């Protein structure tokens, strides 16, 4: 039986098989350790078998919890549902020892979905694996174990579906994991930096998530998932820019609304990156860009402001960034106070004092709000930085500077590769007989 199960399942560390013998008889057992309660297996199989107070085959025959399995085709399925298979005298018995994590798991906090699975990954590797195994019950799921960090010896699991995974990506990940040179690794973000290897990067090229449903979907698409012990977050790689714009709820809700939401996210990215720079360019370089009435109202609202537009922008952006930062770092009950005070200053007082124009306040709040629309936190952080270089370009070159700056961002995005895969690429329909562009090179 054991040989056959090893053939059925992809190589995974949690597929446990054993040949037990207590002098009189010998049995073979097989189970998935991540899906089963090991103490139940101990109490109901190991202990009775090793004590052998009554012959174990009698035990199997009498206790209705051990069910006979006639059809070997069912083995895979039963193991994936948390059964233990026992072979005694060439008869196969099954025994349910599944460990279902439901209410005792922690809830999602960073990437919440209104309707959809609410459980997040656990800091315990086995519990996380249990969640993923139960959401992705496939025998093709490979689980490999690694350790990183000379001092911390942090265990990692690599998960992938061996039918769909891209072997180039997998080799790349394996070689990078074995060559990681660090003393202590604790967090998923830290591991991401070590895996990517580049010190200066603007965009996250690895998706960090806490949602098991996102993970199981990505495994189905052929991605590699890295689980790290002691962190509720897993890494999904390779990632594309468009996945960062995709909230997991887009799969669960009505089609047109979710398309609209995705469009909304892209629109808000454009706004949050370019709006402060556009403000500078329009006020200081090209007031004729806007229609006359709008240009006048902008100029009128700026009439009390004594300094150039970019100083105004710097003041307001400094305020809003510190406000966001403070409300993240503060304990939850003080946090609301900070936002109230900050909101008061940003809302009215600064404008009435003649420090900034009222249009600038709108710009600032649009920038901040549209930044929060991005579903993945690491991308939201990356986007937060992007407006500053554009502000620089706008100060010196006006509108054309912004256009060139945006062009450079697009070049940079197109140039990024996530583990050898293009990062910023529209995937249209692909004819598998023709192959992909750039495919001629890879051999």
């Amino acid at each position, binding site marked *: 039986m054991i040989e056959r199960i090893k053939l059925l399942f992809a190589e995974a560390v949690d597929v446990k098989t054993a040949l037990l013998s207590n002098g009189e008889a010998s049995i073979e057992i097989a189970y998935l350790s991540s899906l089963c309660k090991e103490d139940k297996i101990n109490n109901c199989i190991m202990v009775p078998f090793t004590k052998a107070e009554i012959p174990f085959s009698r035990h199997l025959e009498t206790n209705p919890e051990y069910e006979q399995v006639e059809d070997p085709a069912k083995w895979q399925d039963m193991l994936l549902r948390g059964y233990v298979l026992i072979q005694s005298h060439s008869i196969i018995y099954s025994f349910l020892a599944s460990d279902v994590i439901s209410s005792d798991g922690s809830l999602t906090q960073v990437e919440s979905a209104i309707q959809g699975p609410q459980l997040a990954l656990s800091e315990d590797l086995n519990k996380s694996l249990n969640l993923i195994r139960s959401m992705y019950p496939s025998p093709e799921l490979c689980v490999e174990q690694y350790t990183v960090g000379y001092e911390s010896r942090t265990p990692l699991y690599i998960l992938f579906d061996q039918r769909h995974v891209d072997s180039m990506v997998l080799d790349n990940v394996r070689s990078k994991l074995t060559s990681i040179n660090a003393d202590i690794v604790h967090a998923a973000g830290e591991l991401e930096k070590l895996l990517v290897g580049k010190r200066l990067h603007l965009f996250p090229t690895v998706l960090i998530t806490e949602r098991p449903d996102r993970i199981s979907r990505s495994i189905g698409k052929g991605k590699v998932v890295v689980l790290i012990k002691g962190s509720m977050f897993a890494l999904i790689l390779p990632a594309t820019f468009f996945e960062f714009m995709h909230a997991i709820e887009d799969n669960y809700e009505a089609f047109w609304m979710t398309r609209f939401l995705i469009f909304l996210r892209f629109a808000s990215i454009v706004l949050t990156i370019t709006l402060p720079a556009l403000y500078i360019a329009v006020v200081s370089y090209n007031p004729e*860009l*806007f229609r*006359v009435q709008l240009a006048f109202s902008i100029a009128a609202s700026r009439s009390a402001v004594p300094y150039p537009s970019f100083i105004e922008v710097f003041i307001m952006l400094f305020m809003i960034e510190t406000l966001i930062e403070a409300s993240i770092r503060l304990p939850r009950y003080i946090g609301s106070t900070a936002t109230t005070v900050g909101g008061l200053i940003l809302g009215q007082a600064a404008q009435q004092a003649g420090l900034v124009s009222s249009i600038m306040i709108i710009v600032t709040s649009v920038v901040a709000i549209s930044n929060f629309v991005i579903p993945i936190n690491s991308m939201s952080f990356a986007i937060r930085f992007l407006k500053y270089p554009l502000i620089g370009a706008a100060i010196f*070159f006006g509108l054309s500077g912004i256009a060139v700056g945006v062009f450079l961002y697009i*070049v940079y995005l197109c140039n990024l*590769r996530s583990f050898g895969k293009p990062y910023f690429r529209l995937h249209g329909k692909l004819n598998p007989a*023709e192959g*992909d562009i750039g*495919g001629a*090179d890879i051999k």
Partner: protein
Amino acid sequence: MNRYFFYLFLFVALMNIMIFVPHILNDNRFDGSVAAILISPIFGSIMIYMFTNALSRFPGQGLPEIFSQYFPRWFTTAYMIFYAMMYWFSSTVVAMAFAVLINRFFNPDANVLIIMSIIVLASGYAATRSTLTVMLLIEIIIILNVPIILFIIFKMVTSPQLNLDSIHVVANYVWHWPSLASLAAATFIFTGYINLSLFNRLFPPNFRFKFLWMYPILGLIILLVTFFVPIGFHGSQGTAQYIYLWTITADSLMMQYGFIERVMFLFLIVFLNLSLVYTTAAWHQAMEFLKGCMPSMKPETDSPKAPISNYVILGIFTMASILYMVMVNENMNLAITTAWLIIRMFTEVATVATVFILSRRRLMPR
């Protein structure tokens, strides 16, 4: 995958506005432009058919590889250097035209040389990236900008100011034999296929070119819009007064709703993006052709790290472009562009014919 060929065609076809094609055509509007416009789709479709047909026998190979298989080294080297020069010229002309435009309409106070420098630096950086990156970049820029272009064209075509009578007057000169310059300018629309001479490296071996019938039709539509819309706006005589014809035409339109009133700003930003992409693609190809001269060079479409030779070549290109800007004034630029368009037409015919014959020879049993 055919969409990638479509992008290569489209972005060159749209760039005609920056390379003075409307101006040259309008200069010759009474002697042969209309005929040239009608002839060029035939010329273009023959070229496209021959070139794609020939290249489908050389899957995953660019021009440098194909040439070095069949010709002696000195010939390949000379040809590649000439080719690189041609590409460099076209993009420099575009970059310079755009720097002047920005200076005139966006930042009248700024120094043209500084504007030129940021344009060439940005596209120079972009051109050092890998071939795959440049291809993806073309796709993204096209997808972002083409809706706006369609919107502008829609506004123009439906505008009540478009005078159909003057279009009719000019269209009546269809029986005049086209001059060389107007023919060269009109065929420029169809020249996007020549980008395959490098980007063919990206296409997978089993790739087949499809929908080839679409390109002459699309090119003809672009050409008609390019030529006749300014005439409709400025009249059959008025068009000759402008060099940056389309910018002025875009400026004659107004958007009644929304933040931006003058269409020209939209137009300029869209074409700034397209010019940057055009310069990037042209310089990237020129760079790869130069690298193809070196015997030790192996063609790579997506190297993880840009080799130093990329930076060196592109550094020379940017410096040369800025020098060109210093030495050449706008009048000379226009003359050089016209000459370039004519030389380009003949070079292309030569290249396409050569590659076509090579591909046939390959079929024949030795």
